[in-house]
């Protein structure tokens, strides 16, 4: 093979490999999102369509809203525990690490972790989800608390 063809072959195959890797990553990402994503209700009652429940010790991703008044911080460390809820029963999440700035009571969050009890999650990552609405403080205040609650419910994926 002459060098020019070799170069061309190398380029074309590297592009193909790149696209293959990309497709693999997408499938991986989506499968993780679809199969391992649970809401607190689904952890207790099983997925609506398949009835699948996560097993103890399984790594899962949970999305829900932080229950107001449930956040307990350890005074000496970064340890924190809080309850997560969507429409039904709630679960408890334990986490040792820095929380994102948007983490607050009533906020929609997504967490990764291992299920250690029937309704207890040992989280390794806590991510805050926010909505597509932006507004200055004054307007948010004048809209009142009802609006804020509605917005946060939407952010939690309701």
């Amino acid at each position, binding site marked *: 093979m002459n060098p*020019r063809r070799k*170069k*061309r072959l190398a*380029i*074309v195959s590297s*592009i193909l490999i*790149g*696209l293959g890797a*990309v497709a693999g*990553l*997408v499938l*991986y*990402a*989506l499968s*993780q*999102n*679809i199969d391992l*994503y649970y809401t607190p209700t689904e952890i207790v009652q099983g997925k609506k369509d398949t009835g699948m429940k996560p097993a103890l010790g399984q790594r899962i991703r949970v*999305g829900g809203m932080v229950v107001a008044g449930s956040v307990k911080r350890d005074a000496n460390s970064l340890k924190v525990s809080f309850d997560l809820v969507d429409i039904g029963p709630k679960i408890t999440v334990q986490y040792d690490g*820095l*929380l*994102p*700035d*948007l*983490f607050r009571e009533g906020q929609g969050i*997504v967490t990764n972790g291992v299920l250690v009890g029937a309704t207890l999650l040992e989280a390794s*990552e*806590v*991510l*805050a*989800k*926010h*909505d*597509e*609405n*932006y*507004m*200055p*403080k*004054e*307007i*948010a*205040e004048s809209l009142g608390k009802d609006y804020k609650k509605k917005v946060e419910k939407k*952010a939690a*994926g309701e």
Partner: protein
Amino acid sequence: MFKWLHPYANPEVSYNFCGKLQPWLFRLSALFLTIGLVWALLYAPADYQQGDSFRIFYIHVPAAILAMGIYFAMAIAALSSLVWQLKLADASAAAMAPIGAVFTAIALITGAAWGKPMWGTWWIWDARLTSELILLFLYLGVIALHNAFEDKNLAGKAAGILSLVGVINLPIIHYSVEWWNTLHQGATVSKLGAPSMSAVMYWPFLMCLLGFSFLIAALVCLRFRTEVLARNSMRPWVRTLAANALELEQPMSCNSHGKHSQNQGAK
């Protein structure tokens, strides 16, 4: 129907037309970007939840919208080059790819810098972020294909096919936040109906979007002209142009040489 367009299929005519347009586009972009960015950084109010980190919005969102827009334009150019064999369309597609790649990179990097403080992570394999990363890879693939062949027609064909295949990614990016459970929130401005933000925040965004659009148009003009020159290097008008350009530079060749090496040192 398209007869009035025919003169622009002449490389010399479109080269000169873009040359006339280019300085005005640069001026307009400087004007709108100055207004938009000063407004965004100094006068736009902070978000009620995100505070001042919200100001990243004014770079992130225009860059993301325009990265997709450039891709769409590039795909249309690729289509007309493949179907109607317009060589100029090829040149414009080759001109757009690097610009689109840079704006996609900006959208990804600013997104990461925004995600870290707000979400709590630089990166997550969420459908929106992953499909945006694929957009960057598509751009890089198109650039690589344009450079992979000495025969510019063949290169244009290969790159054109890839860009057309990649169009499928555009609706995926846009609807990813609706189709999948993503950490990334839904669309604020690129949707039907009123934007989900107050007017005091929306106006500076519009200024920035306009500024970046003009900047991209100016850059496309500049790169398109370069591509036209490289593809028509044997034409008499290009040769006259090149000879004149060299003569202009010759008297101060020492100076320009010094500058050049300085630039390389800085890099």
